């Protein structure tokens, strides 16, 4: 887990405790609580996991185990516009890697990182279920199909890059 201790805002912590209560502090609802928690904080640093563990009366290790198991949970903060590049087979053979390289080159960050201004982050996904549109990129909720390396700049321009 991270070495730097993060100070959580008290209002957010109270909000999280309220979420836990709304699920009756039931340990069986851990995954649902974590989804809500990520909605509040944007990510799930160790400090958030400790709060959840305390409220649901679970060992922190158990919470950590679930957080690291599912790819939807992240312990790194994501950008305002999270960019996900599909690396499923259909996308991969149609050149997803070149598209990824172009995003990395233009934004000057690696997979799993965010830009310094916190605006963009890059991650890879395994198949979004839109193989007919390969290669596929999603930014936030928006899906871009048949993306080519040349088209990357235009896509980023939509987000005032």
């Amino acid at each position: 887990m991270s070495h730097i201790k993060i100070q959580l805002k008290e209002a957010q912590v109270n909000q999280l405790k309220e979420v836990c209560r709304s699920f009756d502090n039931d340990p069986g609802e851990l995954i649902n609580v974590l989804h809500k928690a990520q909605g509040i904080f944007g990510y799930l640093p160790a400090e958030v996991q400790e709060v959840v563990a305390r409220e649901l009366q679970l060992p922190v290790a158990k919470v950590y185990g679930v957080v690291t198991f599912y790819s939807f949970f992240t312990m790194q903060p994501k950008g305002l516009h999270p960019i996900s590049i599909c690396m499923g087979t259909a996308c991969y053979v149609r050149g997803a890697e070149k598209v990824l390289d172009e995003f990395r080159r233009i934004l000057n960050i690696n997979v799993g990182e965010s830009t310094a201004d916190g605006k963009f982050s890059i991650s890879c996904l395994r198949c979004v279920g839109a193989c007919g549109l390969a290669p596929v990129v999603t930014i936030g909720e928006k899906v871009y199909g048949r993306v080519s390396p040349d088209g990357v700049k235009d896509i980023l321009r939509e987000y005032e890059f």
Partner: protein
Amino acid sequence: MEKRNLKKVDIIFDISECDYLAVLDKTILRDPDEVILDIIDSGLKGRGGAGFPTGLKWKFTKNEDSEIKYVICNADEGEPGTFKDREILDRVPEKVFTGMAICGFCIGAKEGYIYLRGEYNFLLEELKMKIDLFNKQIREKGLEFTIGIRSGSGAYICGEESALFESMEGYRGEPRNKPPYPTVAGYNWKPTVINNVETLVYVSMICRLGPDKFKELGTKDSRGSKVFSVSGDTPSAGIFELELGMPLNEFVEEFGDGDTKAVQVGGASGHCVPRKQFNETIIGFEGIPTGGSMMIFNSSRSMYNVLHDYLEFFTEESCGQCTPCRVGCQQLLKGIEAVKKGERKPAYLEELKKLALTMKVAAKCGLGQSVANPFNSIIDNFREEIIY
């Protein structure tokens, strides 16, 4: 072997007679055992890929003595190249709900859940609304059955039924040892029927038109039709419902781009069929079964890259619980990289094939057991592309 010609059909997405309430009315007046016999008689097999006879699954669960039983619709569609369930839940969700309610009626379950893939969360709000309406409508009919929905969190392994139960219960999605099978101890360790989205739609069709209508299509071992997700090097990517039992060459003629060198049947965990075997390969349970993924590769594609991508996928998605799968996936990936770079002799591929076969026997669940399918079929048929 029995063959059928390629034939497009329109059952799953046919909304012209989608009066699901009438289907329910008709079915719940019948004896549950008779309905189950109809499903068995129809020859319907699970459409997720494994192909277990649906009616038998229901019968086993019904015969279990338990106050609480569950019906679960497996909508954790994660196999690369498969996107049919998304389309079904988007366009004809009521048919899926109807199948679930019929199942609940037959086996004596009062609760049903849809486990929706996390990546499909954009369908969630709409589905919740439709489920609420459906629940209300069936309650008015006096049918004691309620459907709920659970969202996945981005783990391929959760499509494996026992991992799915673990995930629904709030744990890491790690598969359980079998037996006990879900029919005996599934969700919350209670008897559970877990069916694929598409299977449940065919159930409601069989209850509407009778098993004989369903049997008109397909072969002795593969009754009915199936929804296929076509992707890759094709001018017509998308969703197509086709009769089961067609030879692969007819499929390639219809969907290929004229330069097809291989088709990956059944997604990452399926088999890679090279051009020279198109004529003799039947798509169905007697030949190569598939959950619906048909990925077409033309001669510009490197099969080394394809295999490398599959192995990266399995390495990442292996839950890590059992050693054969966790270590096996990593070693297969490292192995082909070493052969490609010339650090290992080509004969090393034989050792890797043995490792894949060992995983087939020793891995705990379907994920590790099926890595040998793509691995050995690609190595056997495209050996030169892997080495050079």
